[in-house]
């Protein structure tokens, strides 16, 4: 049984300007000790998907439909009190290091200890010791538990975020753009850390990023999202080497190859749709070079094609 | 200009609209009361009667004070006095403050620093203390109170005007205007001042509230408007004096008038501030 299974997830935001269809009919699975990369442009719904899994969506947003099965149990109908026991302990989230996810007025040790004390009845001292142990694991000096968040660099804060997520030995870790705001050197270090920890601790990882190269390095599977829907989903090698969905293809070609012949960076003309009134039919059709008549009227469904799943009318369901 | 006001009104949030509307109603209501005081008052404000310290009744809707004067009449006519003094005070502080702010911001240099220092010192002072000091120097009475409170409220106008002048200077067109031969006074009056007016107007209404309370406060202590002139604060002093007799009506109604007026002005200025997005700070 997969450790995490998302089925037809739909998350909406009821704003003054209209209902934003942030996540529509998103489905994927994450097996034990597997790592899945969720990729796409800003605003495509990948972070919202992650927040929906953790049930951290607050009004005016809500999960409108679908199931989120964690170890077989659906999380969607669970209450806040029940989710409390899951967050941080069974499923945890790694935020961007440069975000304000660490409270600036509390010391590092206290914040790490809080993560433990939320779930285990141990003494404060024991919790602080656990905090120091986890800092060792991510490569930060133990003695810094009395420092404040603003005293750390971006890369170090990212490691702290990883430490916070791991301190209770969760089964699933969701990493939201863990390397995005870092310089290249720190990026490499953090990626290596994530990769090592994942194999060492046997974690299942959901990695969210817009950077396909990151996914290429760390992940087993890849799901590409566009405008709140899944465009293509399958093994990393399969999708990256021969992308089928026109958006995946364009995305892959937008990244310069580190090796091999130099080629022109191609950007995708146009911009993603505003999800209040998404375009009829396939949401990518206004920007798609292969758009056909049917694309304007019918929304394609995820279909199994050549060893992965694609939602595109070029590959119609049988 | 009115069409723009109308447009801004439609674009605002509900709470801002409520603020401005209710505030306007209250303020206009009070002003009307003052204007039509003679129609509303069954007696004259100075008319003493036999019926001393009488509770509210058919004859005296709001009761009488220790001289038998009708409270309703006193607060209705008191409206005129309070509004007059507050408006005078507002004008004094506006002219002084904006004037000083204009000169200070425009010329800069030593003048700016000296005036700024003085204003800073005044600004950090409790208004009531300043007002009391002014009252001591100038003496009691209607005009003196107005001048005193006006001077006490000057610093905030000074600050706002000065910063507006500085931001206008920053925009650079002052050089352009000077280059075509405009004199200093003309530049200040014709070009800079109009930019300041909306913010100053809002500040004026914020300060009206403070002015009204300060005037009433001085009257309450006995340093402001003197008896027998009807003024809400001075009448509250009487209320305090007759506290022992349990004559609550003498204290309640004048104070209620102050509250209604100040509430109205505050609501109006808050609403207008938000509506026109002027970001004027309240003190």
């Amino acid at each position, binding site marked *: 049984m997969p450790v995490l299974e998302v089925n037809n997830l739909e998350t909406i935001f009821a704003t003054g300007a209209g209902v934003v269809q942030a996540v529509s009919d998103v489905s994927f699975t994450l097996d034990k000790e597997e790592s899945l990369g969720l990729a796409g442009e800003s605003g495509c719904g990948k972070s919202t998907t992650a927040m929906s899994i953790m049930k951290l969506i607050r009004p005016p947003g809500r999960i409108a439909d679908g199931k989120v099965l964690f170890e077989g149990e659906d999380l969607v109908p669970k209450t806040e009190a029940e989710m409390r026991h899951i967050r941080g302990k069974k499923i945890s989230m790694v935020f961007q290091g440069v975000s*304000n996810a660490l409270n600036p007025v509390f010391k590092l040790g206290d914040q790490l200890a809080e993560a433990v004390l939320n779930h285990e009845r141990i003494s404060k001292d024991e919790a602080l010791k656990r905090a120091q142990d986890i800092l060792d694991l991510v490569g930060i000096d133990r003695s810094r538990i009395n420092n404040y968040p603003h005293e750390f660099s971006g890369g170090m804060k990212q490691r702290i975020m990883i430490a916070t997520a791991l301190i209770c030995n969760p089964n699933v870790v969701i990493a939201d753009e863990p390397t995005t705001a870092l310089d290249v050197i720190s990026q490499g270090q953090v990626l290596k850390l994530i990769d090592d920890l994942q194999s060492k601790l046997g974690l299942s990882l959901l990695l969210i990023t817009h950077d396909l190269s990151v996914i290429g390095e760390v992940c087993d599977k890849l799901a590409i999202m566009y405008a709140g829907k899944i465009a293509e989903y399958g093994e990393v090698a399969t999708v990256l080497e021969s992308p089928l969905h026109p958006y995946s293809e364009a995305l892959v070609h937008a990244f310069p190859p580190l090796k091999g012949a130099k080629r022109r960076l191609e950007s995708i003309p146009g911009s993603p749709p505003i999800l209040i009134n998404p375009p009829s039919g396939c949401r990518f059709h206004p920007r798609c070079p292969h758009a056909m008549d049917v694309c304007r009227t019918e929304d394609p469904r995820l279909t199994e094609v050549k060893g992965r799943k694609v939602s595109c009318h070029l590959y119609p369901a049988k | 200009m009115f069409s723009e006001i109308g447009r801004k009104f439609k674009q605002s949030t509900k709470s801002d609209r409520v603020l401005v509307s209710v505030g306007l109603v209250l303020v206009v209501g009070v002003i009307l009361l003052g204007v039509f005081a003679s129609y509303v008052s069954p007696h004259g404000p100075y008319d003493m009667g036999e019926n001393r310290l009488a509770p509210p009744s058919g004859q005296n809707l709001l009761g009488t004070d220790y001289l038998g004067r009708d409270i309703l009449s006193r607060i209705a006519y008191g409206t005129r006095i309070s509004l007059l003094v507050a408006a005078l005070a507002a004008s004094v502080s506006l002219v002084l403050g904006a004037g000083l702010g204009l000169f200070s911001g425009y010329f800069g240099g030593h003048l700016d620093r000296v005036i700024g*220092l003085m204003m800073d010192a005044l600004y950090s002072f409790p208004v*009531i203390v300043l007002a009391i000091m002014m009252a001591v120097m100038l003496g009691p009475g209607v005009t003196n109170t107005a001048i005193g409170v006006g001077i006490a409220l000057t610093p905030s106008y000074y600050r706002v005007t000065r910063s507006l002048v500085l931001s206008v200077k920053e925009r650079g067109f002052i050089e352009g205007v000077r280059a075509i031969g405009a004199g200093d006074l003309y530049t200040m009056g014709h070009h800079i001042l109009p930019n300041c007016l909306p913010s100053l107007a809002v500040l004026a209404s914020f300060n009206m509230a403070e002015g009204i309370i300060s005037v009433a406060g001085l009257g309450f202590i006995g340093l402001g408007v003197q008896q027998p002139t009807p003024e809400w604060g001075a009448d509250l002093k009487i209320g305090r004096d007759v506290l022992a007799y349990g004559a609550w009506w003498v204290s309640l109604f004048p104070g209620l008038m102050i509250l209604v007026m100040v509430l109205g002005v505050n609501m109006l200025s808050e609403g207008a501030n938000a509506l026109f997005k002027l970001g004027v700070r309240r003190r």
Partner: protein
Amino acid sequence: MHVIPGDPIRAMLGPKATEEMVSMMRHQLGLDRPLLTQYFDYLFNLLHGDLGNSITTRRPVTYEIALHFPITLQLTLGGIIIAAILGIYSGVISALKENKLADHAARIYAFFVYSLPVFWLGLMFQIVFGKMLGVLPIYGTLDPFIDRPPFITGMVVVDSLITGNLPAFFNSLEHMILPWLTIGLLLSATISRIARANMIEALGEDYVVGARAKGTPESVVTYKHALRNALLPVVTVIGLQFALLLGGALLTEYVYSLNGMGSLLISAIYDRDFPLTQGIVVVFSLLVALVSLSIDIVYAFLDPRIKY
């Protein structure tokens, strides 16, 4: 450094007494000397802690002020505490129930309270609780028949507690309830507003989501994580509002006949006691300056991001 306003010095030159008294007084106080000399003399004395002598009591001004200052302190401190409790509580509730009924009610309430004249509020409290209901005393700091505690801090509430004089302690508390409430309500309106705005902002910050993602209970997220951040600017606000607070304290003292600096100032003015008046004004301005300075320090102390 703070500038002492020149005005009270000019006030000395315009007394409304008879000509003879005036010239005699002037000469006695050395006022017929050139203005500049007087000013420097005054400053010189000031730096030595000498504010001259009160005309009415013939005692040093500093002595008179020291005698009355603690009561003002007692009033202000109590007022700040009540204002903080009321203001923060209503501000937080408002923020949590943003745009719902409780929020609107709290904001209207705060607006209303802000527009109340403090002296009228005091007067009304006196009428309702003192005269009509007769449950609370409305004048002075202590009933005359109670044993007065010795002057240790000068704050009757504190002194009676320290010396174990429980009847005086409770009696003085009774006397302070209404004044504290009067001045506290006034300040609470502003605090409520700021607390609300800051709390709403804090609740939208990333660390709130981060805390939830760790499995932190919602109440802890609100009251530990968000509130702690929201409260920092409130401290600054109290400092900025200090002038307002002093003004309110002055009027409150007058209303409740508390013998603090405010009452002293008013009686000094009525008695045309210029040295005393001036001295009190000087002390007031020093206080305001001191508080402004300390607020910055206190804030730096509370916010770990600031190093000083």
